[in-house]
């Protein structure tokens, strides 16, 4: 493998999770977001020769991701988004500000996930493993849509709280 390929891979892997989160700020459909992440990865590689190593890779990659989101929007793919204009810049800025902190949080999240109450696991798995829509999860589990929303809400909160607690200890 050539040195530039190794370099690209290293940089991309370090930015991948932030890119996914940023795309999810714009695109709520998980499968669509994943497709956009792939497309972004492809474009990043194609343009990697133009990347200025003096600049933060994440900032450059988020800019490319933003263009891919806009391109997809023109093709009618992403759906509603709250992130436009100034708010988009604020979110990018926040990702850059938290860049050094987030990897540890992600590691802790994996640990916290092991302790998620079993009653929440199936709902979370259906949502995140299969990208299943909430109404479909409700139907499959024989629950109301509201119950599924509550479960996901509580599960994410429980995970965030767990991560927050471990970060502070």
């Amino acid at each position, binding site marked *: 493998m050539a040195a530039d390929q190794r370099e690209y891979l290293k940089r991309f892997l370090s930015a991948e999770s932030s890119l996914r989160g940023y795309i999810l700020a714009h695109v709520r459909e998980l499968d669509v977001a994943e497709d956009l992440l792939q497309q972004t990865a492809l474009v990043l590689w194609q343009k990697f020769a133009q990347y200025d190593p003096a600049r933060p890779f994440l900032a450059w990659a988020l800019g490319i991701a933003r263009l891919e989101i806009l391109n997809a929007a023109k093709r009618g793919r992403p759906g509603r988004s709250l992130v436009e204009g100034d708010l988009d810049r604020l979110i990018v800025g926040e990702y850059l500000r938290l860049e050094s902190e987030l990897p540890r949080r992600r590691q802790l999240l994996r640990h916290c996930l092991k302790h998620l109450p079993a009653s929440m696991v199936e709902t979370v798995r259906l949502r995140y493993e299969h990208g299943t829509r909430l109404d479909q999860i409700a139907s499959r589990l024989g629950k109301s849509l509201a119950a599924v929303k509550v479960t996901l809400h509580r599960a*994410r909160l429980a995970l965030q709280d767990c991560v927050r607690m471990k970060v502070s200890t």
Partner: protein
Amino acid sequence: MTDDLQLLISDYLNGEEVDALRDRLASDPKALTEFVLALDVHGELRKIFLEGKGNAAALKEIRLAKRWRWVAAAAVAATALVAWALLGRSTSLPRVESLAGNVRPAVAVGQEISDLETLGDGRATLKYPDGTSLVLGPGTRVRELAPNRVSLTRGSLAAEVTPRADPLVFSTPHGDAKVLGTSLKLAVEKASTRLEVTEGRVRLTRGGDAVDVAAGHFAVAAGDVKPEAKTLVAERIRRLAPNAWLALPGTKLRPVAAKAKGDPRGVMESWSGAVLDTRRNRLVVWGGGHTNYYGNEVYAFDLASLRWERLTEPSPVTAGSQVCADGTPSARGTYNGLAYVAHADRMFALGGDPAGSGPTPDLLWTFDFADHAWENRQPSGDRPPTWVGALSAYDPATRKVWWGEGRSPGIAGLYAYEVDANRWVKHTADFFYYQTGALDTRRGLLVCAGDGKLFAHDVRKGAPIRQAWGEAFVGISNPGFDYDAKKDRLVAWAGGPVRVLHPETRAWTVIDAPGAPKPTPNGIFGRWRYVPSLDVFVVVTDIDDDVHFFKLGD
């Protein structure tokens, strides 16, 4: 973080309206930070689960598994990344890499092709410039091969698809399989197409329906049935050799067990049973009690994902009461007092041996699977006094739960709980103790076996009268005993060989196959159940042992 902000973020992640959140984020830096942290958890959960996809049982031991399509997934896949990124959209047709036997049209190795048919036992391997390979089995036809499309009209093929930006679409008469980089097998039958995915992920579409099939899963496109991904392990169970046992590794209940007073082994070991929730295809276990275990939580083993789930949490115990502080029933050795009431989608629960020194549980409870809620039914009519060692069985034709009560003649009787009327009716003064009941749905017979006895009642025609069918299981109490409607046999297991009862001849056949689990010391009760969807029996004997399956031969 305030609750209302949490809710706004959750709503946004769930795809709801966002105006209030937008205003908040634009004006509150702390809210913005929380939003990004929540997004990061949201995205990372997606990443974690995609990594583990196809390994549904592994949530408690999350480990890095093969990623489905992505390039950047792992450093070791670096070369795949470059190939994927550089090649992007394939622009060429496949070439013949190898041939065996006859094919049509006549082609040579190395030749670029767009149509090919293998004849008789003929086989062919085709390769795209990006490395994607197609192995055509005997009697297979592929047509209109294109850079990003393969039309499979007959036979079967196996494919190794190099990760690509544009998916490769396999089109069959019954649906499309959209491949993003993976290993798969496709087989076209007369009325269906079967897709098996051994690595990666494939989207199978038929009409307006689509399903993502992950590694270790398969799906079938056929008729009006919406395609559904199922595990290949489940398929392995379905295709288990006749009269053979299968232990499924990694299916012990212990990892999901709750922590309550006592040892959760009591969930099974303390004279407790289970029901088969046929709507969701899972074995639901509820038990404990006596001085063994005080947790009243309910467990389910999902026969599709092949994993355990704790459906409820242990309730605070109220000493000396059969009702917990939160209004749920206290833990008890459930014996054979559980039944799945299919038409109401509820578990019936009565009697047994309560946790601690509580009174005999004489309240009739149902557990609603839709909302995981218990209900004290308080039925009318001639209620059974309830004691340990009773049995129950649900008859879907009459929508009744039959209840056999015994131990001492004074309280013996055959009762029916009429579910829709919420009413008990006593039918006879028959005596039941330490038998397990199975409903022969073809004949409408409640057949009871155990503790050296075998007898039946016709519960659909007039007054049920006890028919003595002989002796069975001398010395064995509370066996596993259920009716296999497909093969029309009553099948018992209590350790060692499986015993098969012909309901017409009333003759037993003994099948002594290797691989049976160690039986639960105090009885198997309802933890041995026939699973129609898999055409096997499932049994679980110990929270520290794997779930076992037995396939009855024809």
